[in-house]
């Protein structure tokens, strides 16, 4: 299965709490009136200037194994190495908001409107995750129409020991250029507000791992813990 998805920009408008949390506010913080005003302007701009689109393509275990092997120097042992072989289904994806958002942020900064520029940038970062959620859940719905004991999670090159170079074989496999996503020599994707990765579907337990890898010491998000905690319990 390979799906190219064009989303409506209002589908990907993030929860303001997520946007504020990206800027270090606690979930229960009450933002100042001026900050709330910035937020509503930023979300309005996001719906005007984001052009969310993505591709998600099912991939066999052996095809993914080739991508993973071609990812250059990934860490010696990674959680993903233990997770993907247990998957029932796998898919690779790329999703972008297009370039107009980044251009708008840049122009706001140039014109000294950086409170709004920064708010828009953080809103776009949260929105791209929402766009990826939409693609993932659409794919999951088709893979696992019967429901049951099933969960999917996304894993990206550059995270948890999977070398960022993995983007080369991954984006080639998906043909990311079809939605205008290019990869530079430093593995930077353009447009900037783009994300790529692997969706792993299967029993929720396969996603559970201990964060005692060497690279976990250097991680300042430990987001894996929240992801694992939010998995459906059986």
């Amino acid at each position: 299965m390979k799906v190219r998805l064009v989303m409506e920009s209002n589908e990907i408008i993030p929860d303001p709490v997520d946007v504020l949390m990206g800027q270090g506010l606690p979930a229960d913080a009450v933002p100042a009136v001026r900050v709330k005003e910035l937020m509503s302007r930023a979300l309005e701009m996001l719906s005007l200037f984001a052009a969310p689109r993505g591709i998600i393509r099912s991939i066999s275990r052996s095809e993914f194994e080739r991508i993973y092997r071609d990812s250059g120097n990934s860490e010696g042992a990674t959680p993903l190495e233990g997770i993907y072989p247990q998957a029932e289904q796998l898919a690779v994806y790329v999703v972008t908001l297009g370039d107009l958002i980044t251009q708008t942020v840049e122009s706001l900064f140039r014109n000294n409107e950086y409170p709004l520029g920064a708010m828009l940038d953080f809103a776009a970062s949260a929105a791209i995750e929402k766009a990826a959620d939409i693609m993932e859940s659409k794919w999951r719905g088709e893979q696992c129409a019967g429901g049951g004991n099933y969960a999917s999670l996304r894993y990206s090159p550059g995270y948890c020991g999977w070398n960022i170079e993995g983007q080369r074989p991954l984006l080639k496999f998906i043909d990311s250029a079809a939605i205008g996503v290019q990869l530079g020599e430093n593995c930077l994707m353009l447009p900037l507000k783009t994300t790529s990765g692997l969706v792993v579907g299967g029993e929720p337990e396969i996603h559970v791992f201990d964060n005692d890898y060497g690279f976990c010491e250097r991680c300042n998000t430990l987001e894996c813990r929240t992801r694992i905690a939010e998995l459906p319990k059986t």
Partner: protein
Amino acid sequence: MEILTRIAEELELGDDERVVSLTEEALAAGIKAQEILNGGLLVGMEAVGVKFRAHEVFLPDVLLTAKAMNLALKLIEPTLITEGAPELDKVIIGTVRGDLHDIGKNLVGIMLRGAGFKVIDLGKDVSPERFIKTAREEGARIIGMSALLTTTMVGMKDVIDLINAEGLSGKLLTVVGGAPVSEEYARKIGADAYAFDASRAIDCVRDLLAQSA
């Protein structure tokens, strides 16, 4: 002076319109620009910095304050020059070669400006040669570099190597930062300081300038 206290208070609230009108009022009343800066603007900015570090206010609040600060600075700048105020210390900043992320670097620049430095922002994808040429031309003592990916942060070392090769070590100091950069990495490549975030970048720049004075 009451008006300076009000400038500091409105600045803390991030009300740019009020800060601008109060600054205009203070200038019209004949208060020296240097006094407006030291007794009003920097006081308000410092108060926000303290609250930010104590997690009482957050990035959006700080940016509102910084915007008001920059508008007021623009107003007083011409008068500061005619008053013969000492030139502000200059800091060159940029995102290293091959990296196009600049929001973090922009925030560092905004905070440094707010703290009273003259910031020359070279933007993104900046070559080592350009960092050093600009520092020489501007007579700056600090270069601040930002990178967001492990594949691009190696560009920081290229800048430091060039500083050393040109015999500028100890004269031109470096501060590095960005998500994949760490204290350990900064030490390994010979950077003079590492800043975890924009507010710590201010402390690093102040410390380095004090040490090298």
